Structure formats: structure tokens, C-alpha cells
């Protein structure tokens, strides 16, 4: 109890908790769950964008997209590393993902159907991710906070790149502009759902807030995202697919229409358009690569015993 009190005092004083510091088991568990979930999202998130690398419409875009997906893999790697500081191995986390026990952001269960979806993902999905993640740069757990600083920097770059794809399409010919609007239509609502259920229905928030893992509520972050994004859509000349959307002069915020939480529940429950496909691909990749990992291990063993023999 004294330890717990001391811990909370450090949190309240905005001190960083480091791997070797004492921490409550629940704090550790919450962080492991959140960080690994975040890492899984980066890894699964490679798939929808990866779907367009071979069909990107220009070499510049092709290179940028490949680099972006590579960055996501990198994010996954340092997030797994951050979680490992809490005493859980990457293999274990990956296993939980493959077994369907761990979650990842449900936005990646939507398909990328046109090139404009690549723009929309950068602009909206990365935009929403940044809203969620910027507060995490001040998260009480040191390794996570530091990983997030790096992630956020790269994500902002991706977000600008995505917006620029949208801008190019919107300044392009009729077919391109239509493609952009269509992508916004399909991605807008799922992006709003990325912030999680409305505060009234949300779990975890209380302790997470007290421990300064979470600093804003779902609804607060969602509102920030909408306020930032609607003017961007207008600048692009696109229509946000929400007939109830209006600017509230009194609050200074954009008020939005009702979110279809049933859709969200279904996607989280595994029934999104691509859940099965994403998991199948990830599992197949693990299976197909098993012989390579075996070979690498076998070679490393041989090398070790050769070095021993030589010593």
C-alpha cells in the first residue's frame, strides 16, 4: 500500500515510470495489453496499404507507400520492444495475436478498394491515430512514451503524405475526384469509431486516466479529430458523409450525427469485411516463414558451437 501510494505520487508528479521501477500488477497488465495491441495494429495495418504497393499509379507514390508500410513494421517492432520491457516476449504477443486472443485496431478490417483509399488512410486513419497517440507521448511509462514520440513524428509525416494524395486527386480529373469522395464516404465513419465507444459506455478509462496512461476521453479525442478534419475536407472540396454535421457556434465544435455502434461491435467481434482475411494472411505468413526461422536458429547454433570449438 505504501508502494502503491509512492507510485501514484510519482505519477501525479509527472515522473516517468521505468522498467525496473516497482509498479502495480494491474498497471503492468494494462500497459502490456495496450502496447501489444498497438503493435499488432501496426503489423496488421501493413496489409490494407500493402494491397496497393504493386499497383501504385506513379513511381514516386509507389516508393512512398512502400516506405510507409516499412515504417509501420518499424513501429510494430519498437512497440513490441517497449512491451518487452514489461516482461513479456514478442513471440508470446505474436502468438496471442495469431490465436485470436489479442486485438488490433478494427479500422484495418476494412478493405482498400481504390488508390484513393491510400490517401484516405493516410489522411484520416493516421490522423485519428495521431490524435490518440500524441497524449501517449506523455504517458507515465517511460519506454512507451519514448516509442510514441518516434511513432508520432513518422505518423505526422504519413498523415501529410496522405492528405497530399487526396489533394492531388481532388485537383485532378473527374474520375480522380470521384475516387477521393468515394474513399471519404467509406472511411469517415470507421475512423470516428477508432476512438472507441462513447464515454458513457467505455471501460478502462478511470484507472487508465488515474495512471496517466490515458489523458483524454474517447469522446474528447473524437471531437478534436472532427474539428481538425472537417475544415480539411472542405478545403479539398469534399463532402463529409454526415447529413447532421454542423458547426455549433456556441461551443465552437463541429456536431456530428449518430455513430452506428452496432457496426463497430460487429467489426470488433470479428465480423468486419476483412477480419478473417487479415488473420489468415498473418497466420499463413507465419507458417510459410517457419522454415526460414528454423534455419536461422539452426545456423546460429552451429555458429555458436563452432566459436566454442575454436576458443
Amino acid at each position, binding site marked *: 500500500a505504501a508502494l502503491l501510494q509512492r507510485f501514484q505520487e510519482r505519477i501525479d508528479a509527472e515522473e516517468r515510470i521505468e522498467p525496473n521501477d516497482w509498479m502495480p500488477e494491474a498497471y503492468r497488465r494494462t500497459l502490456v495489453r495496450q502496447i501489444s495491441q498497438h503493435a499488432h495494429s501496426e503489423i496488421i495495418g501493413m496489409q490494407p496499404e500493402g494491397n496497393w504497393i*504493386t499497383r501504385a499509379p*506513379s*513511381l514516386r507514390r509507389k516508393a512512398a507507400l512502400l516506405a510507409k508500410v516499412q515504417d509501420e513494421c518499424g513501429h510494430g517492432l519498437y512497440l513490441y520492444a517497449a512491451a518487452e520491457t514489461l516482461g513479456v516476449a514478442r513471440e508470446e504477443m505474436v502468438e496471442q495475436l495469431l490465436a485470436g486472443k489479442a486485438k488490433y485496431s478494427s479500422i484495418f478490417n476494412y478493405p482498400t478498394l481504390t488508390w484513393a483509399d491510400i490517401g484516405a488512410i493516410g489522411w484520416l486513419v493516421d490522423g485519428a491515430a495521431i490524435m490518440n497517440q500524441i497524449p501517449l507521448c506523455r504517458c507515465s511509462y517511460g519506454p512507451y512514451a519514448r516509442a510514441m514520440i518516434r511513432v508520432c513524428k513518422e505518423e505526422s509525416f504519413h498523415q501529410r503524405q496522405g492528405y497530399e494524395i487526396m489533394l492531388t486527386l481532388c485537383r485532378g480529373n473527374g474520375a480522380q475526384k470521384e475516387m477521393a469522395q468515394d474513399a471519404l464516404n467509406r472511411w469517415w465513419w470507421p475512423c470516428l469509431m477508432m476512438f472507441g465507444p462513447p464515454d458513457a459506455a467505455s471501460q478502462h478509462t478511470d484507472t487508465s486516466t488515474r495512471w496517466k496512461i490515458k489523458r483524454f476521453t474517447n469522446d474528447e479525442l473524437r471531437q478534436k479529430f472532427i474539428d481538425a478534419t472537417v475544415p480539411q475536407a472542405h478545403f479539398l472540396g469534399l463532402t463529409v458523409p454526415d447529413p447532421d454535421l454542423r458547426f455549433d457556434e456556441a461551443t465552437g465544435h463541429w456536431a456530428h450525427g449518430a455513430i452506428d455502434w452496432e457496426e463497430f461491435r460487429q467489426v470488433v467481434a470479428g465480423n468486419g469485411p476483412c477480419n478473417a482475411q487479415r488473420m489468415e494472411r498473418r497466420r499463413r505468413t507465419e507458417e510459410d*516463414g517457419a522454415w526460414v526461422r528454423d534455419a*536461422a536458429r539452426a545456423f546460429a547454433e552451429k555458429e555458436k558451437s563452432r566459436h566454442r570449438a575454436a576458443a
Partner: protein
Amino acid sequence: MTSIRLAETPLLTYVLRRADDALVLGHRLSEWCGKAPLMEEEMALANMGLDLIGQARALYTYAGEVEAKGHDEDALAYLRDERAYRNLLLVEQPNGDFALTMVRQLLYAAFADPYWRAMMASRDATLAAIAAKAEKETAYHLRHSAEWVVRLGDGTAESHARIVRALEKLWPFTGELFETDDVEREMIAAGIAVDPAALRDTWRGTVSAVLARATLTMPEDGWMQSGGRGGRHSEHLGHLLAELQSMQRTIPGATW
């Protein structure tokens, strides 16, 4: 017709050949995205792919300048038909398993690395500059693929068997690396290009050293396939291009 026509001069053809090599191999590597056996390898494959696509972009841009008909890198990459592509057959071979991809990378990089190094002395300043950058990148590709070939060759029985199969399958495509024709000879004579035949011993030395460490034996030099430089490809390239070019063929002339 969404395709463009080029009046190929020796220099243009020469540059396009190298650009096509880089693009096609870079594209093949990019096909691995999300399918690599390790996350670290996901990063490495993307790195190599990015290097090659970068080389392709520089080379296509230069080809566009050489042609001087207003064709940019994208026109040259996306609007030429299969028969106008000039890449080596080696680089268009499908990824197969990870062993095949790594052997393909080794066989290409063991040639491209000394080639670009020698090309740094080209009388063509643009090519010399491209070569300087490409050489550094290719040195890494060579190192990385060599490490994997060694690891897989000297790993498990299965990985060894796979590497042997990959080597057997790709070996007939290595002869083309050293071919010269009138185009190449003209460029060599002008001091613009390097004679690839002169690099054969270096290449053999590099490859045989890696194979020895990998507990593999160097395949015999049998019949060698040829045709890529003249646009006579395998059946694989057409499918690659159908995918690569689909957007530009559907909405040609747009800005992306």
C-alpha cells in the same frame, strides 16, 4: 492506345535496360510486403526494394532527358509494353520462396555491385553519379543476401534443399548478366558503359565464396537463357506489368 513509342538510340536503350532491371527487381521485392518470414526481414526487403525503385526513378528520368520527347519516369515505366521492356530475365523471375528471392538477389547484386562501382568512372556524368549511389546500395544488398544464402545453405536440411533448388533454377539466367551486343559495345567504346564480360571473374569469385560458406557447390555452367535485353521475356513479366501498370492504363495522363 495508352502505350508510348520511343525512337531508341543506343544511349536510350542502354539506360532503359538498367532502369528496367532496377524497377522489375524492386517490384518483385515489394511483392513481399506483409509476407516476409521475419519482421526484421520485412524491413530489409522493403529497404532493398526502395533502393532499386530509387535507382529506376533516376535512370528513367535520365532516359527521358536523353530522349527529349517529354516522357517522364512514369511514362517510361507505366506506358511501355512488355516487348519494349529490356530487363534481364533473372530479375523478372517470380519470388518463389524466400530462398529463391535471396539467391536471385545474390546473383544480381554480385554483378551489379562491381558494375556500378566501375560505372562511377563513366564518361557520362549523370550515369557516374547514379552509379555512385547505386553501388553503395548494392553493396548492402550483396551483403544481406549473401548472409541469408549462407544461413539457409548451412541451416537445416530443408533450407539447404531449398537453396539448392533455387540455385539450380536461377543459374541459367546468369549468363545474360555478361552479354554484350551492338548497343552495349557502342556504349563501351564511347567510355559510357563498362564491359560486363570483364566482371565475370569478380562475379564468380564473389558467388563461389558465398556458396562455399553456405556449404553449396557452384553449379556447372550449362546452357544459358537469353532474350531480356531484346524484349524477349519469360511469361512472367506480362503478369507483373499488367498489375504494375493497371492504374496508368485505366486513367492515363493524370497527375498522381
